[in-house]
């Protein structure tokens, strides 16, 4: 069969040029993708694939164009030897692309397993980690490094938690001892001071001195009381309370007694929450501490958001106090529950608010979580079990 070779030559020449150009464009895009997210496995893969395809396309195209030129000029022998060389290079490139693709698909599969495990681990969590499937592909290598990082972080976090729990338990015992020993003498000092005050003329210097003693003894007693709360040595009576009413009472009290004009307070309550068995007085104290801390962090203008909700299994309720304040520095995060730790100026805070709250929540078999982004605010989350025993006494 004799036939024109022109269509083949045209398709070959035009295709060679177009493919070579397109392959270089593709390479340029993968270079940009790589630059946008350096170190990402998926872009590395695409870059290498496109690099090899570009080399393949350019070699092939150059070979084909050269072949046409050599054939037209009557140099068939040279054309044959070049063909062998480009053929060998093309074979190598094809194998390389195939190997990289196999490797990529294998890693992809491993990634799926890891994501599955991650989701499995998060299924019991109240606040699941974000495993958006979109990230799965676009943050492919991030997911892998995230899993490893998360594992290590969780291990470190757990060790820190145990150390923190140990430290706080020791402090609790120590505080309980000191508080118990100091409570009685303070009571006696206060009693005698008040006895002396009764017989003293209000205008005398002595009366003012005694008043100063009384004020400071009361302040000491307040600290001792807080220490006792922290060390859980005080008796607790529990009853079913409506958590939203308690929060509203605290919020109303703060609004009435503090300057909150420029602070926006947002309430997002889950009305499905049933009354929960809690020590109302203690829980109010926790809310008060958290909201006052949020107010202090926000300053004069900002937002404080109070959110309540039920977790998926409906076994826990959570309360979040979210502020748009200046956040907590990373180095302070592990210390904020330590007794007497405060970032407030001297004289403005005792550093017992969060420690006491911690003690109260632990006593209710709950947890306090803190999430903070420097400059963007903090989120304190109190998690409480729904089925606490009624009238539990410690």
């Amino acid at each position: 069969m004799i036939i024109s070779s022109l269509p083949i030559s045209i398709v070959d020449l035009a295709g060679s040029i177009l493919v070579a150009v397109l392959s270089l464009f593709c390479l340029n895009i993968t270079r940009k993708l790589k630059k946008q997210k350096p170190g990402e496995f998926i872009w590395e893969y695409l870059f290498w694939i496109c690099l090899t395809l570009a080399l393949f396309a350019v070699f092939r195209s150059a070979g084909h164009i050269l072949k046409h030129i050599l054939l037209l000029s009557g140099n068939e022998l040279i054309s044959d030897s070049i063909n062998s060389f480009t053929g060998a290079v093309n074979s190598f490139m094809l194998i390389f692309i195939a190997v990289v693709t196999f490797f990529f698909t294998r890693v992809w599969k491993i990634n799926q397993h890891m994501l599955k495990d991650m989701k499995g681990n998060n299924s019991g969590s109240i606040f699941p980690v974000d495993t958006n499937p979109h990230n799965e592909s676009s943050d492919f290598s991030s997911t892998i490094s995230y899993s490893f990082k998360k594992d290590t972080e969780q291990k470190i976090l757990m060790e820190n938690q145990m150390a923190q729990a140990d430290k706080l338990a020791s402090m609790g015992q120590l505080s309980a001892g000191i508080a118990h020993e100091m409570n009685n003498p303070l009571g006696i000092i206060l009693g005698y001071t008040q006895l002396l005050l009764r017989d003293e003329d209000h205008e005398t210097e002595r009366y003012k001195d005694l008043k100063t003693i009384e004020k400071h003894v009361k302040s000491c007693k307040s600290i001792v009381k807080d220490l006792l709360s922290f060390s859980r040595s005080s008796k607790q009576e529990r009853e079913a309370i409506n958590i939203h009413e308690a929060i509203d009472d605290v919020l109303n009290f703060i609004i009435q007694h503090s300057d909150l004009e420029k602070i926006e307070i947002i309430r997002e309550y889950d009305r499905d929450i049933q009354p929960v068995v809690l020590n109302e007085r203690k829980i109010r104290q926790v809310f008060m501490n958290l909201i006052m801390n949020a107010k202090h962090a926000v300053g004069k203008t900002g937002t404080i958001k109070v959110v309540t909700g039920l977790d998926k299994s409906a076994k826990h309720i959570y309360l979040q106090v979210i502020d748009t304040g200046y956040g907590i520095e990373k180095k302070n995060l592990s210390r904020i529950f330590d007794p007497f730790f405060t970032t407030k100026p001297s004289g403005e805070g005792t550093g017992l608010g969060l420690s006491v709250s911690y003690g109260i929540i632990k006593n209710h078999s709950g947890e306090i979580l803190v999430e903070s982004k420097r400059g963007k605010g903090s989120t304190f989350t109190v998690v409480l079990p729904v089925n606490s025993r009624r009238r539990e006494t410690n």
Partner: protein
Amino acid sequence: MENRIYILVFFLTSLSWTILCPNPAFATCDYGRIEGVHTHQLAHIFFIISMGILIYRLRSKKPQLPSGWKFMQYSALFFILWSLDAFAVHFLNEQFNIIQVKTIGPWQIKINDCFNNNLLKVFYYLARMDYLLFMPAFIFLYYGLKRLLNESHPGFSKLDVSDPDFSEKDRV
């Protein structure tokens, strides 16, 4: 001592004879020119399988992937078709010499085949224009990558662990 001298003389003589009067060693095998064609054909098969697996993987994650990957699938499909086409051309022409092509003029070729089958000749003639499959593969690859580039702006990525301000959660 004498034995050692004999051994040394024997060793040196053998070495000199080996170097000065060499014979062919036949240490490596010569497979002939066709080996390259077979290797190239195996590379095509390997390439087809790898692209097939890539499509399978992408299809299994179809609902969750950015749309750019859809075009990557089409690209892989066209790479498979092109590879099959190229495989067929090599198979007919170079590997088993079923088709013989002779240039008889600047723009004319003569196609002969072992079975004298015109359909086979037409198939070979069309298959020679493999760029008709190779080019769409690159066009889809280009569009796919372009989409991925558009979709990979920071808004699409929520989880960035490299961010130094990545939320720190302290469970107490």
